[in-house]
């Protein structure tokens, strides 16, 4: 009991002005893990999936007896998919709720907001699915369990050249999202290095709904394919408007496309489009099948998507590190996280490299007859 109290409020004493309040609180016999997520707003589909995965992981961990003789307690806060909210939430989770680690976010932009706060407080943060490289560059306490955009961009360039046989590609990038700008850059470099050509680069901003102007400018350049590194809402609308304008070429994107809304909004227009992602529920691995079955049982038959699998893995990797560290002290959990090697997660073998990123392969998925279909696995 006393030990738990000390571990809880020692870091708090050093870093918050609310330390006095901590003494008055009764020591909690749980390991508090904070989660900041986009539960509402534009990326809510991602945030909800990821949150459900994390929730399932915490429940499973607790059913297996938790860690260090304590149960896990997940404290979730919603940032409404808004910029500027995550920093406030991270501060609140660390200083008021005294969490020992942070999990989040799906969007790189919002992980970047919370990362400096976790770093300053020496609280390890594990991002489930922020793929922009800058996220883990924010400091030694920031980790992730997904592949990063340089790797994803390189795999996408490989896919465009080998599978789509595309030589001339048009780019349509969202300039207000670090994810989109980053992925476009990391696609472009290897694609051009291997003899490909970017015929035109067009831009849009998050929340735009009208892309006809950009697509009209793309059309006369006659590309073989259009690369849209962006999120599903915009991607679906872009596909729809491209088909309306008579552009019948393949359109492809990254893991930001992964959501049922892509098909709901895009309808027939997204047929034959491709994207890379972290995992496919069609995989035959027993671990994946068990995860899919458990997830369906808990969430009314819903099939987990990649965000759910990553949300699950983020909590599991963190729990694994806490068990190996045998403490919840920030610096020790950090060291254990950094030493993660060949952890067998739902989204593949996870090894954390020197830059605190996960090294793993990607899968390509296409839309066929209104369903997501597994195409191939691209190894790094």
């Amino acid at each position: 009991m006393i030990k738990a109290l000390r571990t809880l409020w020692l870091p708090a004493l050093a870093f918050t002005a609310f330390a006095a309040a901590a003494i008055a609180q009764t020591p909690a016999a749980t390991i508090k893990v904070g989660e900041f997520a986009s539960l509402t707003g534009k990326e809510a589909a991602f945030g909800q999936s990821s949150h459900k995965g994390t929730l399932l992981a915490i429940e499973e961990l607790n059913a297996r007896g938790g860690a260090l003789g304590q149960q896990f307690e997940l404290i979730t806060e919603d940032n409404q998919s808004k910029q500027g909210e995550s920093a406030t939430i991270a501060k609140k989770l660390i200083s008021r709720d005294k969490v020992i680690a942070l999990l989040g976010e799906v969007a790189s932009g919002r992980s970047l907001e919370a990362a400096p706060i976790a770093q300053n407080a020496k609280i390890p943060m594990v991002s489930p699915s922020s793929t922009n490289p800058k996220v883990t560059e924010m400091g030694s306490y920031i980790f992730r369990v997904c592949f990063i955009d340089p790797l994803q961009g390189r795999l996408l360039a490989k896919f465009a050249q080998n599978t789509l046989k595309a030589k001339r590609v048009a780019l349509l990038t969202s300039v207000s999202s670090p994810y989109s700008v980053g992925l476009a850059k990391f696609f472009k470099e290897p694609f051009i290095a291997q003899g490909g050509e970017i015929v035109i680069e067009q831009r849009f901003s998050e929340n735009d709904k009208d892309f006809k102007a950009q697509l009209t400018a793309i059309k006369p350049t006659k590309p073989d394919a259009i690369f849209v590194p962006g999120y599903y809402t915009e991607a679906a609308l872009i596909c729809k408007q491209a088909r309306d304008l008579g552009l019948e070429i393949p359109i492809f994107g990254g893991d930001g496309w992964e959501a049922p809304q892509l098909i709901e909004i895009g309808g027939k227009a997204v047929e034959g489009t491709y994207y890379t992602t972290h995992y496919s529920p069609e995989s035959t691995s027993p671990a994946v099948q068990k995860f899919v079955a458990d997830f369906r049982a808990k969430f009314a038959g819903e099939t987990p998507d990649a965000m759910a699998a990553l949300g699950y893995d983020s909590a599991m990797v963190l729990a694994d590190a806490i068990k190996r560290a045998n403490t919840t002290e920030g610096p020790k959990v950090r060291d254990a996280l950094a030493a993660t090697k060949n952890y067998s997660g739902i989204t593949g073998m996870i090894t954390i490299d020197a830059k605190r990123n996960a090294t793993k392969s990607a899968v390509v998925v296409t839309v066929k007859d209104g369903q997501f279909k597994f195409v191939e696995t691209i190894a790094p």
Partner: protein
Amino acid sequence: MSEFLQQLLNGLSLGAIYALIALGYTMVYGVLRFINFAHSDVFMVGSFIGYYMGRLVPHETLWGGLVVLAVAMIGCAILGMTIERLAYRRLRGSPTLNVLITAIGVSLLLEYSGQIFFGAAPRNFPSIFPVRNFEVAGIIVGSNQLIVIAVSVVLMIVLQFIVYRTKIGTAMRAVSLNPKAATLMGVNNDVVISFTFGLGSALAAAGGILYALNYPSIDPLMGVMPGLKAFVAAILGGIGNIPGAALGGLILGTVETFVNGSQWSTYKDAIAFAILIIILLFRPAGLLGRFTVEKV
């Protein structure tokens, strides 16, 4: 050349929607001298009524589309009149600032109750009108674009007729000119103001349906940006002036589309708002607005 024409068409269909929303801002301003910020959320409610109505009628039929359009317009007219009755009427005669703050409050109320009732995730708007794409002289003309332009033009002609050729329109203009004198002449101000809100909200609903037809992803916060643009369009054309709002909407939509298709697409909104500032520097009352000296 064909790219230019294509962009022009894209721009006009976007501008027509801005114009429809801008008309609501301008009419309310003309009669009550305040900006109804909740207008952009009535626009959102209009597209959600369309979304639910769209399930009841057969898709891709002309009459089905028109029924959805009519129901959404009537629904929003009632909503607009209710908002006026409950929130704004009590404040009549109090400082404009109070009404303005109330309008922002109503706007937030609609947005966030929308998130509770409709959910925050974007939804797919059904294609209620028949969808065809024609190719004319190298440019692709979508049936939705034609519907947007046609419906907008028809509604604007009807509006012009109501305002200048009917008794209630004359009453609206009278209240706009001088509310006290209008009362003395036997005009029932409450009825006129209520009617103005209903009419403006119906146009917003039409705008919402047309917007959702072209950009079929709707969510409770969808009204914010188009509402802001339409507000700019109304000021651009001269707030309080009906043809001005239509002109402002078309200019804004076209400029935005051309900038979007160019290398400077990142500066789309910056350029749109810079144009507003420049026009207001040279014509403080907007393009078609009349500058009036306030008499003391």
